[in-house]
């Protein structure tokens, strides 16, 4: 999708992402692991083997009990942003929203000193980095990319999973309008590897509401086939299928420790990012 008009209007994707993130993100993520830091979290009773350096002697003086201090460990993370650049994302303004989300998240995590990585289904991969110049390179790529062709989910997810070296966030931005089993396998695998997967399901308004009527010949962007349907009749079933697909997808994300955020091209991406930040991991 050509986003140059957008860029002309709002400046570069980088600026837009900064604008999005600065406005919304006010906290910072925390690791679930506990370690050595200055930020105290809680006490726990002393156990044999605990380092005596962490015994809180003041508590001992007051209560005559050995209590060990626990601290939040602030760690660095690798954030892998997976962007679907297949032909179906070209439909309406889906890709526009998708790259805005991608850009915003890249910027967001980079701001937090996390290492960010970008992977697209068209084969582009930028390894995890914290460097601004490399981040800008990613943004330049995003500004110029055009969604096209199709991709084989199994192969792409396999390739993507090989490239994920460290644990952290994996953010999938796609319409997810393909066989759910590929995604399910991928996020289950990632979950086993202690990676958290979050999905942004970007749909167009027409995909969401199916506002067609009468007899029609439907042609997919990625498919060669033409399907003849009565849109009035098909609408109810399409919406039902979409609802089930979303539900199933969401369940897979949730059961593997992640979550699915859905949005349409008519919604602002701010709300989606806000949900991502507000909802925590």
């Amino acid at each position, binding site marked *: 999708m050509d986003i140059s008009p957008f860029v002309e209007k709002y400046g570069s994707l980088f600026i837009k992402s900064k604008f999005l993130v600065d406005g919304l993100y006010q906290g910072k993520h925390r690791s679930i692991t506990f370690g050595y830091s200055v930020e105290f979290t809680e006490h726990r009773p002393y156990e044999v083997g605990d380092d005596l350096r962490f015994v809180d002697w003041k508590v001992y003086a007051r209560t005559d009990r050995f209590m060990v201090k626990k601290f939040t460990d602030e760690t660095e993370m690798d954030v892998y942003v997976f962007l679907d650049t297949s032909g179906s994302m070209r439909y309406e303004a889906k890709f526009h929203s998708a790259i805005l989300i991608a850009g915003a998240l890249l910027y967001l995590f980079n701001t937090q000193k996390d290492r960010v990585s970008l992977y697209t289904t068209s084969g582009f991969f930028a390894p995890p980095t914290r460097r601004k110049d490399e981040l800008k390179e990613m943004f330049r790529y995003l500004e110029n990319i055009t969604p096209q062709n199709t991709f084989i989910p199994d192969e792409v997810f396999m390739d993507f999973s090989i490239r994920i070296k460290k644990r952290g966030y994996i953010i999938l931005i796609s319409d997810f309008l393909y066989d759910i089993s590929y995604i399910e396998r991928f996020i289950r695998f990632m979950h086993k590897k202690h990676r958290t997967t979050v999905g942004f399901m970007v749909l*167009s308004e027409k995909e969401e509401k199916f506002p067609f009527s009468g007899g029609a010949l439907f042609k997919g962007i990625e498919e060669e086939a033409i399907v003849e349907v009565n849109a009035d009749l098909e609408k109810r079933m399409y919406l039902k299928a979409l609802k089930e697909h979303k539900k199933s997808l969401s369940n897979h994300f949730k059961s593997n420790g992640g979550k699915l955020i859905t949005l349409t091209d008519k919604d602002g991406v701010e709300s989606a990012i806000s949900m991502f930040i507000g909802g925590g991991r």
Partner: protein
Amino acid sequence: MSFLYPFFLFLLPLAALPLILFTGLRGKKKEIIFSTLFLIRREEFRDERFKQRLRLWLIIILRILMIITIIFLLARPRYFGKRWHFAYFDASISMKEAKAERARSALFKLLDIFGEKRVFVIDFDGERLFIKDTSEVPPMAVNDVFYTDGRLPFQPSGKVICAPLSSSDAWIHLDSIKGGYMYFSAFSPENTVVKVYNLLQSLDSFEIKAGKGSFIYSVSGRKMNYPWFFVDYRDNLMENNYFFYVALNGKIPVRLDKKLMVLKAFFDSYPFTLSPVSDNCVSVDTILQGCKRQVVFFSKKNRGLESYVNKAHKVPFGKWYGYMMHSGINSFLFFRFYPHDTAAQFYDPEFLKALSDTLKNMFKEERAEKNVFIRDVDFSICRGPLVPEKNSVAGFYVCNGDTVAVNIDIQEYRKPSLCKHSEEVSFKQLSSIMVFQRLLVYFLILLFVFETALLYFL
């Protein structure tokens, strides 16, 4: 099955509208580029797809049926089977000689037209009264027949109506679509009327009660554009018997000026020197002493009686005064006197005959050209104050006080074509129309419910 308004059936092609719209709107299939066909025409929805297609066609069929039902409702279907016609043959004194013969021949003509078994004849000669083919008397719904509660004045209600058969005293029952009442012919002796009533009451669902007293003109609905009949009952003191009359709501133009002139001449010239015919009657002199000389006209405006009385619609009328009311149906000449017994003058037979002849002659010429004949001129008396009916056209009077009012009712009827209506509608058919209408309405409601269910719940 036949239809009262068959021309509505020409609208039947409209029933194809839903189908045309459905197929027409589909037209050429347009090509839609969609992101992916992943969710379209999925195999697991094959059954559902079939159901949806079925639902769509059901809705189209229901809409077609709804349009057909509405057209049928407008066309008013009716039962095409037996037609029942009632004929009442008046063999009273007034029907002697040539009139009676004419009526009989009309009746026989009817029998020929409709078939003897389909005509229900109430005939009587003197005291004897009989019915032909009583076994085939059609059932009549209670609500379709007028009834009274036995108290007077009664107001007829119901939907069975009648129309004059010819200029004779033979009549035929008719029904009509928009209401009206069953008729009875006029000027029957009291015992005959009672007999007729008793006879009719013995029939299934035929409730008629007789009584005596004054009458009420019900004027509501007069502006409707269909023949409007009403049956009324009153005590005719002149002949001391009961009679019913039917008035036809034909718009008969009456030249009031001319009428007034004739009446004025009559009253001016009539030698009111008669002596009372009984102890209840008083002399003309007495009447004149108590009279005010006023004549008030009433037009067909929607006003009460008092509003006219109080206004300046007063015309000197010789030595007499009264209210003259033109209703469009009949001409009513109301004379109002104080005290009431002065009205007795009007019962003087010679006076009445002279007045009657004058009125008849007056209207005869102008009616003859318009297929209207004067049936008779009748007189009635009522004691009580003139009570205007609110918002009525003709008003009415009720006798419960001291005022005496005399009504001179010039009954005139439009000569009917030989029962155009009677061939169209009979009691049975009226009943069938109502049944059909009801069924169609229920059917329409049912269709609507089904469609709503299909559209929103399935």
